């Protein structure tokens, strides 16, 4: 291993901003995408369920 200490690791040979700026933004985007995909799934299920019940009600009313 090439790191003498934790601070040497964080410093990345003076390139900390470039290295951690790359990893930070990448993992932030991955987390955001994961969150958005999950939210979209829940939103879609709720919306379609509402739509389905509205359509079902309409059909029943028309039949009555």
């Amino acid at each position, binding site marked *: 291993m090439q790191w003498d200490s934790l601070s040497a690791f964080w410093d990345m040979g003076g*390139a900390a901003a*470039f290295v951690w700026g790359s990893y930070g933004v990448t993992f932030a985007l991955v987390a955001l995408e994961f969150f958005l995909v999950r939210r979209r799934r829940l939103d879609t299920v709720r919306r379609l369920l509402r739509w389905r019940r509205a359509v079902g009600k309409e059909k029943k009313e028309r039949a009555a």
Partner: protein
Amino acid sequence: MTAAERAPRASLFRFAAPQTFYPLAGRLAPWFAAAALVLTLAGMWLGFFVAPTDATQGEVYRVIFIHVPAAWMSMFIYLVMAFWSAVGLVMNTRLSFVMSQALAPTGAMFCFVALWTGALWGRPTWGAYWVWDARLTSQLLLLFLYLGFIALTRAIEDPRRADRAGAMIALVGAVNVPIIYFSVKWWNTLHQGASVSLTKAPSMASTMLAGMLVMAFAAWAYTLAVTLWRVRPMILERERHTEWVGAVLEAEGARAGGGR
């Protein structure tokens, strides 16, 4: 009678039917996500603790463990989108178009990551965040192709027309992918040539290469997981008039607490 209602014949084609693919995607996605997590941890460990300091660049080269896998993935996803678009146009299978649309945001994300990490790597090594060389410019064009594809397929109300319009962008834009890949050969670019190719030995330490490949597999597994998760609600949306989606919705609604 639609293809979805017909009795399944061959085992592989069975999964082309939305109601068999939907639960399969749901079952597979967590496994790919878990694989992505494990591979990312392994790749980061290789990248930061096993791979040596670069003789000329020092530590900043460690950006490579994201940069190269992200760039590969951004090109590969676009080709897969073009493939599904072609399948959709030729075979008239609607799930194919949905697959290509589910892939697009992840491809755009990786494309942006490749550009972003490239800029942060370029500044300390070339002295510039950005130069208009062939590699960088064609990669930027790829980002615009992704964004154009996403904007177009979402802007058109009629799904059939949106599918076809998107497929055209995916197919025409695919020409750009070999241009990106070979740009470092065809033009004099500031961007370096390929460090890894199928025809010659890689020009890097084997532990560096290992870290990069493991991260590339992580990106692959992540893409599969997130795309399968994204395609599921898209399928529900498209198939909302069918019986099976009704049953799925009622089951999900009961689980989520009465579908508020």
